[in-house]
């Protein structure tokens, strides 16, 4: 009877000696995922509209002609050895319309630094493109509009040695979501 009791004690001791203390062997947590869905922007150029510097006369040295918006009306400023040879309203701003289904984000309007226009023989540089709203305020972004409009002006630089003729060219306009 005494032997049997001793054996039971030993068995109990072994059970304790081989036991592990288990903590959590697995756990979970949650990650978060987010996205903002937008629609493509649509930029439309009025094909009857063009950025027009008018008729310019050069006097053999450099000058610039700038078309801008003042209070929503096109204005032309001449600097250097250039003069205009046309009627008062021969120059004009260019016109664009833009639209999107999203009104809760900001759009940016961007231009290239400069482009060249040509008459087939000589070139001139058009630079300093600016966008204006209908009130003549220069804008680089627009917020909260599903449709908006802007007008474009720029600066024409002449060396003074250009041959006569009609100079033309194109310039890119960038419209994008601003993040």
């Amino acid at each position, binding site marked *: 009877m005494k032997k049997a009791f001793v054996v039971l004690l030993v068995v109990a001791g072994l059970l304790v000696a081989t036991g592990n203390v288990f903590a959590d062997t697995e*756990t979970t947590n949650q990650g978060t995922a987010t996205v*903002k*869905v937008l*629609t493509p922007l649509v930029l439309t150029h009025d094909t009857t509209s063009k950025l027009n510097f008018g008729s310019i006369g050069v006097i053999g040295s450099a000058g610039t002609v700038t078309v801008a918006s003042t209070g929503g009306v096109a204005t032309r400023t001449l600097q250097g050895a250039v003069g205009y040879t046309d009627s008062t309203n021969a120059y004009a701003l260019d016109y664009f319309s833009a639209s999107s289904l999203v009104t809760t*984000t900001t759009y940016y309007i961007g231009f290239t630094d400069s482009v060249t226009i040509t008459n087939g023989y000589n070139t001139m540089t058009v630079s300093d493109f600016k966008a204006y709203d209908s009130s003549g305020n220069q804008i680089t972004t627009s917020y909260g509009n599903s449709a908006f409009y802007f007008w474009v002006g720029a600066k024409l630089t002449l060396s003074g040695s250009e041959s006569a003729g009609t100079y033309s060219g194109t310039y890119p306009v960038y419209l994008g979501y601003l993040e």
Partner: protein
Amino acid sequence: LVSQVYAQTALSLTATQSLAFGSIIRFPTAGSITLSAQGSVSASNVMYVRGSVRHVALFSVTGDANRNFYITLPVSTTLSGPDSATMTLDTFTVLPSSPASLGVDGTCSFAVGATLEVAMNQPTGEYSGTFEVLISYE
């Protein structure tokens, strides 16, 4: 009798960074955008807005030093948006791959990427949702 008891550190899992796809531009057709666990982005019939902040989800783990653990991710989950609109998030990937190893200090971090399914004419707006991550000792 001297008892020998092996203690085991409880596994702990903390989410330290969300999975962010940033702003995307959807097309009239269905598409998808994938953020790999490595952080690269690819898209089909979806444009992602340049400059928009996007990043993988990050998690940190603590547990027994030098032990391996499994990482289990869901098959898919749902993101909720405006007017009860939903998007499906699936094809989860993880880096390092499972089983990952806890270092000598008993810690490890891992990244999670996934593919976001963009439905035809997906309603615009902001979507968010959660996905459950399970880790367990090997």
